[in-house]
């Protein structure tokens, strides 16, 4: 069992996304600690990218704030080193292909291994392009997380069969950000995935309320929340950590006993 799977071993997982360096790295570290203290089972750390094409306005804004604060990729690795002094839950990076590619895929992924990053999510790297990164990930024991979307249809089996860590099931069409309702028939997709793999499935995109998290976690192995947390960070700035903690607690409580 890889470290990522441990996030799913105690029931439904709550996965919290935080953009690194918004508004600064010290606040990011404090937010991660509050999220973990309040029940987050896995942390997704966003490395900011200038042009995040899969993100809605909320996370785009966080990327811009972080980059204008001067955050560099090497600073994010320093943040991980600092967090790993006490944080034991799995942590993955969420960023874009060019951030990894320009750093040097080998150097980036080996540094993930060295600092204690368990996986990488690259939303602009589909199944067909994963050879740029997958062999290096495998060599360093870092899981390259696969995404499955409502439009994946005939691709679900192919992707799920080769998935490592967990499967990120995108709840609906479009970019990241809160949605009032999620209408995709996700139950069928999860069933299809489970027919070919026992890799856990977590659902993300559009989840902001406890009842949405509960509905999603009920039909899968966990819920991923990004924009709603980033919005709290945007609103409270350096004072965000306690508010993030409170929010994570409310979300984790909603899925705890499913």
């Amino acid at each position: 069992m890889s470290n990522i799977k441990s996030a799913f071993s105690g029931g439904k997982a709550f996965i919290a996304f935080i953009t690194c360096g918004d508004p600064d790295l010290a606040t990011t570290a404090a937010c991660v600690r509050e999220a973990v203290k309040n029940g987050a089972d896995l942390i997704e750390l966003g490395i900011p990218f200038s042009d995040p094409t899969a993100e809605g306005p909320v996370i785009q804004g966080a990327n811009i704030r972080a980059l204008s604060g001067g955050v560099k990729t090497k600073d994010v690795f320093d943040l991980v080193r600092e967090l790993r002094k006490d944080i034991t839950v799995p942590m993955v990076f969420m960023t874009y292909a060019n951030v990894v590619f320009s750093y040097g895929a080998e150097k980036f992924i080996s540094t993930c291994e060295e600092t204690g990053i368990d996986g990488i999510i690259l939303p602009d790297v589909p199944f067909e392009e994963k050879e740029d990164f997958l062999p290096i990930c495998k060599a360093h024991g870092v899981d390259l997380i696969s995404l499955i979307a409502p439009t994946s249809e005939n691709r679900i089996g192919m992707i799920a069969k080769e998935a490592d860590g967990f499967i990120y099931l995108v709840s609906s069409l479009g970019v990241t950000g809160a949605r009032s309702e999620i209408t995709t028939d996700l139950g069928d997709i999860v069933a299809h995935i489970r027919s070919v793999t026992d890799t856990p499935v977590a659902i993300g995109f559009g989840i902001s309320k406890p009842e949405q998290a509960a509905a999603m976690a009920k039909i899968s192995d966990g819920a991923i929340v990004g924009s709603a947390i980033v919005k709290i960070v945007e609103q409270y700035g350096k004072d965000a950590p306690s508010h993030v903690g409170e929010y994570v607690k409310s979300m984790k409580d909603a899925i705890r006993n499913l």
Partner: protein
Amino acid sequence: MTNPAGRFGIHGGQYIPETLMNAVIELEEAYNHYKNDPQFNKELSDLFNEYANRPSRLYYAEKMTKDLGGAKIYLKREDLNHTGAHKVNNVLGQALLAKKMGKTRLIAETGAGQHGVATATAAALFGMECVVFMGEEDTIRQALNVYRMRLLGATVIPVKTGTRTLKDAVSEAMREWTTRISDTHYCLGSVMGPHPFPTIVRDFQAVISKEIKEQMLAKEGRLPDAVLACVGGGSNAIGSFYHFIEDKDVKLIGCEAAGRGIDTFETAATVNTGKLGIFHGMKSYFCQDEDGQIAPVYSISAGLDYPGVGPEHAHLHDIGRAQYVPVTDEEAVQAFEYLSKMEGIIPAIESAHAVAYARKLAPTMGKDKIIVVTISGRGDKDCAAIARYRGEDIHE
């Protein structure tokens, strides 16, 4: 498992969200079917000839030739196409393809507005809904084209993220496509983005070099010594180069927008200043910092103001088949004014980058040599901006 079909050397590929994968696969399958369908090709050829005014003229620029005193200069007049630029070639092809695929809505990005105008035109002609994403900065630089798109029935959405230029318009169009796929075709305007777009757009633009070759053989009985075109994403350039790629004696020269110079940060000369990266669905050269953050590029030309270049150009550069030269704002503006006065042809400021390099190159070549310069579009849209550059404020 990589997809060799979408590669030009090491460049190209399909670096896009999973949500869009079946859409691009569906597009590729439809394209592979229709490109060999005689009925599709007849319809497209009728649209080119009857609607878009093809073939475009290959005009001998005699005064310019004499003035420069070297190689004989021909201008490929894509500015005479309906809607005023080469963009219509690609758009008619993609719109017809989208219609065959049962799509009822076209979305597009635009920089200078020429691709947006062409898409709005095709949407009007085919009775399709049209939404165009345009950087807010460009809606100001190219206000006339915004009005033209609206007049044609399109909705223009000013993009207020990032540098508010072409790159951000592409990102926003991609985001929109992930939101609404089933009835919507993303009519990408250049030889960029994920496979199959670089191939599809090239094939529809290749009519330019097919005609140049026929016209040149008819007029001169031989091939030209050099073909020049401006390069942003690179669609008019690849269209101008394509049928000459195997003719090794024909020099292919892409003219990049150097903005205030390639030794400054205010440039958009990707091949000259960028490095290998992955962005907007493709592996290619991009202007970026050491952390892979895409650079806020600059050019006076909204159509060339893009931090990347199409993957086939990146490959032609790698193998030394094409040469990419930087042309500054000042050189382009001078060429804009030069061609207007010399030949009575007002070129788009994008195309003026190619004219500028022709002014340097022609005098270095013998009078028995021939160069072709593609005038990718007409310059009416640029008059207000060039007047501003020269310190004159005119109201249209």
